[in-house]
């Protein structure tokens, strides 16, 4: 079984080829088996003997400090694969219906991108060293770009995809530097913190900071958050799978995987926590200001990823992974039920045009309610337990940050309540027709809703998840839970949620305009492209100028070379 786990990343590739060749009556149906088998493999491994497996082909890339082709299948990887398989299976089924209006070639392309994404994500979590991690890391970035830009004829999709690429590129640059600066023989994700591997100027702080930058870019933290809301230009299933449940959590995964390194660099750990808390609060505030349904949810994702970062920074990698697991199911649920709404309204995403859909779309209504309550942390639901774990760790590690995070739960209640009541309650703003969703759109919501309710009990009270993860997610001692801190945080969230309901639909739909959208990105992009245009304009095509520049260049380089 362990050997199969190592090669789980290849499971969706047959589907990719078959779909590409046009197999299957309904485009994409040939791809369905991939994530299903992936889920089965991961769960079987977790329920079975849980023997870790490794594959190490040394000197695959002889020029790197650690250029082995190195896969490692362990508990952390299996948990991530299980989440990936579970959410992607739901999303695949959902997409069969959601994308059914596309031309067949487009549907096939969509599923091929999805298959490619799942394979890349699986490589990412199975990677044993930085070099292999990069394959998955870049692969998911590429898949994200392609899927954000999937609807090419719609304005802004390409720009949104390029934004995602740009933010990813920042992280990739940091990762590239990290991969070459470690001493020879280093690169294994688990041994980066050993003294031999920290023998570089800068040591643990430098390496850990570079990984933090990479993770922040992938998980839309801090100033690099800007691409995630724009990424909502892609189809909604993509927003659920890639930009909520799995890919954006890759940064969290990386930090958890290398948590020993973070522990060796306390200042960076504090920075991680602070970054997470700031993003959790900022994301929550920003969500309140969105006029667009999906963007509101996207900022919620930014905010929740901030909780996970805070958990890692507090020295509780297990809490972060736990929240990652619960968040994957309830956020995917929220997005998919939002997708039902958007599909029913022919792509309408503006909050001002949505409202009063409670009776017309009871399935989506129920699903969104469950997801919202799990998100705000209604005691007993999954989100409550995992958030509790993070807050609890924060209380012990850094009380000030933990209190800020505690306050953040109120924001969570406010913004999700605003979206929920704004879309489903109140009067209908117009009388546009509503398509009733096909069963294929609704069925995938059921397992996700179940997950959103019960995922927390994977850990509480029996400690199943922490015992399964063991050392792979730090010293995963079972969390205390039902701490007063966490309990009151849940109540605060519910209070915020109720407050939004009480304020009513009209106010809810009205976005609070403060203007925290990333202005700096636009400015940087304008400057950059302006500079590029000016530089390109130097190339006038005139031979005289070119010759002049060449002779001057030769003279100057000769002078410099003789003086150097």
């Amino acid at each position, binding site marked *: 079984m362990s050997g199969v786990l190592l090669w789980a990343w290849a499971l969706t590739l047959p589907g990719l080829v078959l779909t590409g060749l046009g197999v299957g009556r309904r485009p994409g149906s040939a791809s369905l088996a991939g994530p299903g088998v992936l889920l089965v493999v991961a769960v079987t491994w977790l329920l079975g003997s849980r023997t870790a497996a490794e594959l190490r082909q040394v000197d695959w890339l002889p020029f790197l400090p650690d250029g082995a082709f190195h896969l490692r299948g362990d508990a952390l990887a299996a948990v991530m694969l299980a989440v990936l398989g579970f959410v992607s299976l739901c999303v695949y089924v959902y997409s069969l219906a959601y994308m059914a209006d596309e031309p067949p070639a487009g549907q096939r392309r969509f599923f091929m991108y999805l298959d490619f994404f799942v394979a890349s994500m699986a490589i990412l979590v199975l990677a044993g060293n930085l070099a292999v991690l990069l394959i998955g890391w870049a692969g998911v970035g590429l898949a994200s770009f392609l899927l954000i830009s999937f609807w090419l004829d719609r304005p802004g999709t390409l720009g949104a995809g390029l934004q995602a690429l740009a933010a990813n590129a920042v992280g990739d640059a940091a990762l590239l530097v990290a991969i070459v600066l470690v001493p020879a023989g280093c690169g294994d994700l688990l041994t980066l913190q050993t003294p031999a591997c920290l023998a570089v100027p800068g040591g643990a702080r430098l390496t850990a900071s570079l990984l933090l930058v990479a993770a922040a870019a992938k998980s839309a933290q801090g100033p690099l958050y800007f691409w995630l809301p724009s990424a909502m230009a892609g189809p909604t299933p993509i927003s659920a799978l890639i930009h909520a449940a799995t890919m954006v959590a890759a940064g969290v995964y990386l930090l958890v995987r290398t948590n020993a390194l973070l522990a060796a660099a306390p200042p960076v750990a504090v920075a991680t926590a602070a970054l997470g808390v700031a993003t959790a609060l900022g994301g929550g505030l920003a969500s309140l200001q969105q006029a667009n349904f999906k963007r509101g949810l996207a900022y919620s994702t930014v905010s929740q990823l901030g909780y996970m970062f805070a958990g890692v920074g507090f020295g509780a990698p297990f809490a972060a992974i736990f929240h990652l697991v619960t968040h994957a199911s309830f956020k995917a649920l929220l997005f998919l039920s939002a997708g039902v709404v958007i599909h029913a309204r022919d792509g309408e995403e503006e909050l001002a045009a949505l409202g009063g859909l409670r009776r017309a779309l009871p399935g989506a209504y129920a699903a969104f309610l469950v997801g919202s309550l799990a998100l705000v942390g209604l005691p007993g639901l999954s989100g409550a337990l995992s958030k509790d774990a993070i807050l609890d760790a924060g209380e012990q590690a850094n009380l000030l940050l933990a209190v800020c995070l505690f306050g953040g739960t109120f924001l969570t209640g406010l913004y999700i309540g605003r979206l929920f009541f704004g879309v489903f309650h109140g009067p209908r703003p117009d009388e546009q027709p509503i398509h009733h969703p096909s069963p294929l759109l609704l069925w995938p919501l059921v397992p996700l809703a179940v997950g959103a309710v019960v995922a927390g009990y994977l850990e509480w009270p029996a400690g199943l998840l922490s015992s399964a993860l063991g050392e792979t997610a730090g010293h995963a001692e079972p969390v205390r839970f039902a701490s007063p801190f966490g309990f009151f945080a849940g109540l605060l969230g519910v209070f915020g949620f109720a407050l939004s309901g009480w304020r009513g639909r009209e106010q809810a739909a009205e976005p609070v305009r403060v203007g925290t959208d990333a202005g700096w990105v636009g400015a940087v992009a304008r400057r950059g492209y302006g500079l590029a245009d000016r530089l390109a304009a130097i*190339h*006038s*095509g*005139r*031979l*005289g*100028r070119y*010759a*002049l520049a060449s*002779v001057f260049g030769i003279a100057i380089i000769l002078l410099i070379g003789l003086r150097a």
Partner: protein
Amino acid sequence: MLVLGTSAALLALGSGGVLLRRNPVAMLMSVELMLNAGNLLFVLAARVRGVVDGQAAALIVLVVAAAEAVVGLGLALALFRDRSRVDVDDPAEVRG
């Protein structure tokens, strides 16, 4: 020393000519000046070093100069023959 200085000056003079002239043929003639500077250097070095290879190399470079002139003039002729004005800065449709 004198000849060495002359060759360096010729190289610079030729490069100045390439930059100054708008006529492609004059430009190529200036390039020939630069190549002549190199040849002068070869012969001088053969003398200074007492190695005859320099002179032989100068002969080979003469051949190279001829080959270059042939191709260069061919291209210039093809490009400018149908134009009303001969100016190397005129064909600027391709902007790298």
